[in-house]
């Protein structure tokens, strides 16, 4: 006789939280979470309490006060009567400038070095290996300081350009002044300028955009679209008739003529640097601090990029090279058409983190007196107002935002180009 018995109804006992494997992991997590929250709460509470006892209050009102200090490199208008917020914004723009310049240069140099390191030529391979090991294994701060020291000590001071028989002269047809304070290059000027448009009114982040520049960019973008349409047309003709029409002079015309017309219409001319008073005046002034920081950051990061590129290329099996060779492609075309396009997909994810590193490393700028976000908001502003907590917190938030934006853009790009597995 078979009796069907229900499985015993297990009552829940507290000890099961520890001894029952179904609940144990949950218990551990909850305990850890409580511990973490307590710790965080303690830190925050302690901070607030201690700030209160030392009579300091937390607030961001200081951002509206006049900054009172000057910044040498300003991409948009600024004077020392503007607010701390504006100064921080100037610093942020400087950070972004050096980060963008650095990322571009690091990528170009890195790819070249990475490819060359795989060269069958012994000398080139060894030289690039030395480059990579040298830059990778010395702290970037030392490279920054070292580059700055070289610029300051080896280049002539502006006073060397003075006199009837100067020790130093302008380079490149008397147009570029290379001094130990920086490099002055000719600046583009427009004699029939369209003026600027003013954005964001009177807020701390207001700035002007040059209409000349906008027009020029619009025309060039339009030309590129035109050239593309021409290329599509040529492709279609080739498909249909088997003959490709000669279009290079048309393409050149489409690309160059409209831009030239705009430049002439706006009265484009170059403003040359000229020694006046203590310094060169006129021209675009690339400060030493910017050059040193930019060079050091990009050469340092390029060493890492080179290794990533080399790894990416080595990740493509030699069968691909052999197959391409069997099809009759020359080595240069194999690299350009077969290997690199595939390698790039392997390269991009680690490349993102190198871009992030470069951007974050740019906060070492103060070592050479480059006024980036760390130098303005988390440097002088913090020092003059005594708002350490707020300034550092705000600075962290901004760096976080920059880094996450770079990640987002690069991840989007990565998703577009990554290997689609079938």
């Amino acid at each position, binding site marked *: 006789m078979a009796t069907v018995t229900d499985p015993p109804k297990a009552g829940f006992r507290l000890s099961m939280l520890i001894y029952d494997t179904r609940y144990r992991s949950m218990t551990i997590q909850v305990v850890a979470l409580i511990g973490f929250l307590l710790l965080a709460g303690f830190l925050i509470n302690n901070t607030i309490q201690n700030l209160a006892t030392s009579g300091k209050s937390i607030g961001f009102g200081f951002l509206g006060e006049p900054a009172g200090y000057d910044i040498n490199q300003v991409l948009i208008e600024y004077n020392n009567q503007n607010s701390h917020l504006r100064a921080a914004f100037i610093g942020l723009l400087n950070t972004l400038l050096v980060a963008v310049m650095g990322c571009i240069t690091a990528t170009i140099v890195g790819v070249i070095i990475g490819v060359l390191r795989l060269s069958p030529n012994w000398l080139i391979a060894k030289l690039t290996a030395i480059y990579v090991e040298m830059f990778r294994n010395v702290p970037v701060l030392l490279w920054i300081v070292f580059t700055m020291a070289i610029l*300051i000590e080896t280049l002539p001071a502006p006073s060397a350009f003075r006199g009837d028989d100067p020790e130093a002269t302008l380079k490149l047809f008397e147009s570029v002044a290379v001094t130990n304070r920086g490099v002055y290059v000719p600046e583009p000027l427009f004699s029939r300028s369209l003026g600027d448009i003013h954005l964001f009114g009177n807020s701390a982040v207001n700035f002007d955009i040059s209409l000349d520049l906008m027009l020029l960019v619009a025309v060039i973008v339009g030309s590129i679209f035109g050239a593309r349409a021409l290329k599509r047309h040529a492709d279609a003709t080739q498909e249909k008739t088997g003959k490709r029409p000669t279009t290079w002079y048309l393409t050149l015309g489409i690309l160059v003529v409209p831009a030239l017309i705009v430049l002439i219409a706006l009265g484009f001319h170059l403003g040359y640097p000229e020694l006046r008073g203590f310094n060169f005046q006129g021209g675009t002034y690339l400060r030493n601090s910017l050059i040193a920081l930019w060079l050091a950051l990009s050469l340092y990061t390029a060493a890492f990029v080179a290794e990533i590129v080399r790894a990416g290329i080595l990740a493509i099996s030699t069968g691909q090279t052999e197959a391409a060779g069997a099809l009759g492609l020359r080595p240069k075309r194999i690299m350009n058409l077969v290997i690199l396009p595939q390698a790039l997909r392997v390269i991009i994810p680690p490349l993102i983190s190198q871009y992030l590193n470069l951007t974050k490393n740019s906060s070492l700028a103060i070592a050479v007196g480059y006024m980036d976000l760390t130098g303005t908001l988390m440097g002088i502003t913090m020092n003059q107002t005594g708002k350490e907590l707020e300034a550092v917190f705000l600075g962290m938030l901004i760096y976080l935002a920059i880094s996450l934006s770079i990640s987002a853009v690069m991840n989007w790009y990565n998703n577009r180009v990554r290997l689609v597995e079938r």
Partner: protein
Amino acid sequence: MKKSLFLGAVTVAGLAATAGAAATLDDVKARGTLNCGVATGVPGFAAPNASGEWEGFDVAVCRAVAAAVLGDPTAVEFVPTTGKTRFTALASGEIDMLARNTTWTFSRDVDLKFTFVGVNYYDGQGFMVPKELGVSSAKELDGATVCIQTGTTTELNLADFFRVNNMSYEPVPIETNAEAQQQYLAGACDVYTTDASGLAATRSTFENATDHVILPEIISKEPLGPLVRHGDSEWGDVVRWSLNAMIAAEEYGVTSANVGEMSMEAGDNPEVNRLLGTEGNLGEMLGLEGDWAKKIIESVGNYGEVFAGTIGESTPIGLSRGLNAQWTEGGLLYAPPFR
């Protein structure tokens, strides 16, 4: 790095009050050493000598406090601070006092919550230029490139000076005196500006000191003095009166040479007697030994001796007393009565 910086800032803020609330005097006595913030290296004011010992005018204040509190002028842990790090170091309790040519200003006193205990050097901001530039006045500096230590009052004075005089300039922000010197000597900046005493000190280390001139304009008032945190007045009193003891000792002619003799027994001058502890109990009131001031003068010297030995006219720095003479000699130094 950013994260640890934030956590650091949180901890700093966390520690600040603990340190502020506790009695610093007891802490120092228990620890056996005084943590004193000084500059990273300004010759004559605070710089390590050839054997690595810190020496200088500001360093002497640290040593005086150590002598008064611990009876040993060498029981000092010197913490080099830059213009940027000094206030955080003091607020966080990393150092007990700061003696680093720091200007006494309203906002530092009131807003940053520090107590300036006095002035040990009356200074003003000046400009140094190479002679070959042919500049004779700061008003001729329109368009010049100016090296400046970042995070200091000089930065703000400079901005004001050029704005008021309707001149432009190119600031080159620098972290330390040594970097400024390098850039200035290489000609990467035309002008170096800081407190006039600092300029003299820096110039003294140049190979050709005579090739550089300090312009006559003094564009600001820079009363430099030691400071402590708000909230511990007892400790503030100790530092304040240690400084005053040095100043008063000079006024009454007590020197390191004669202090031993003068403190043997009460003399004719009741003020000196009270200072040296042969009469009254001033030391006890401060929470120190009765002969605290004697120890200072014995081991460090009075204000005049320290001045002459570190930055005076016979040293390479070659500063004259000027405003820093005793009030009896036309200067501004004036120690309140020891009574």
